[in-house]
């Protein structure tokens, strides 16, 4: 019985964790993993659209700012790649994203959040 409870909890936790990593508020945005969950390759990403002309995607690891990107115009995707800024622990990382006029700055965690 305990094993079943743990299995249920595991499934629910994984599902909720994934929901925090990437979603859509008019445009897709959030934390995107690269080749795997643990290769230190991850992205803060904000798609264009919904009238936005300015988008920001910043990366943090263990709460410390490691770098970020700003894009302007109507068609570019903000795409801050962690490897551009060094080599950081993926599961302890977050992205802080905003899209002017669409959604304000908020945080998305790695799907396998461990910090």
């Amino acid at each position, binding site marked *: 019985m305990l*094993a*079943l409870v*743990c*299995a*249920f*909890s*595991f*499934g*629910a*936790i*994984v*599902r*909720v964790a*994934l*929901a925090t*990593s*990437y*979603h*859509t508020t008019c445009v*897709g945005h959030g934390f*995107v993993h*690269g080749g795997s969950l643990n290769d230190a390759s991850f*992205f803060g*990403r904000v*798609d*264009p659209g919904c009238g936005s*002309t*300015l988008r920001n995607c*910043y990366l943090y690891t263990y709460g410390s*700012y*490691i*770098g*970020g*990107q*700003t*894009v*302007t*115009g*109507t*068609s*570019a*995707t*903000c*795409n*801050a*790649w962690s*490897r*551009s*800024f*060094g*080599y*950081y622990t993926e599961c302890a990382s977050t992205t802080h994203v905003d899209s*002017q006029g669409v959604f304000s700055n908020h945080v998305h965690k790695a799907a396998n959040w461990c910090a």
Partner: protein
Amino acid sequence: MRLTGPVKTGAAMVATAAIGVSAASAFVGPPPAVVTPRSPVAQPGSDRIDQTRPDPGSGLDWGVRSYASTSGASCTEVGRMSAGRFGHIRADGSFEPAAVREGGTCGNLAVEPVVLAINHYPATARDAPRTVLFGRARPDVAAIRVTGPDGTERPLVAGAAGGFVLPLAGAVAPTALPVQVTLTDGQSQTFDWR
């Protein structure tokens, strides 16, 4: 075929975990797999190092790599150059080559004349902060001018595939770097990062 005890238990746990996923989904909405980001993945063989510029300090040169994505977007990616190779600097200061994958900033040059981005590199134990403006222009762009925080106007010359890069010392706010783009027909457009 009869299932053994451990197999039955394992199957029950997998099934229960799936029920857990399903139950949690009732509270958190559809799974993220439903939301697919626009692909910035490179088309094989479409990349080229378009331009390099010296670092404002004594670091490795900066380079801009242009490529086409599998979704048809025009992409631009900034990095460091070492012995003709494109890559990035690790925390220990070593250079790590980076094959083209999905690290670029991608846009649609059919709807606007340039893809424009700024990367922000905070200070580290080894390096001073950098602000790097980069992008990709379509062929009918005649001139790109950036006005720096000191008021100096800097013309940028795009490479063969339209890539351009301007590395600056310090942490510079995007609003201090307005970009004026002039087309061959004389029209101009200013991107003021607002």
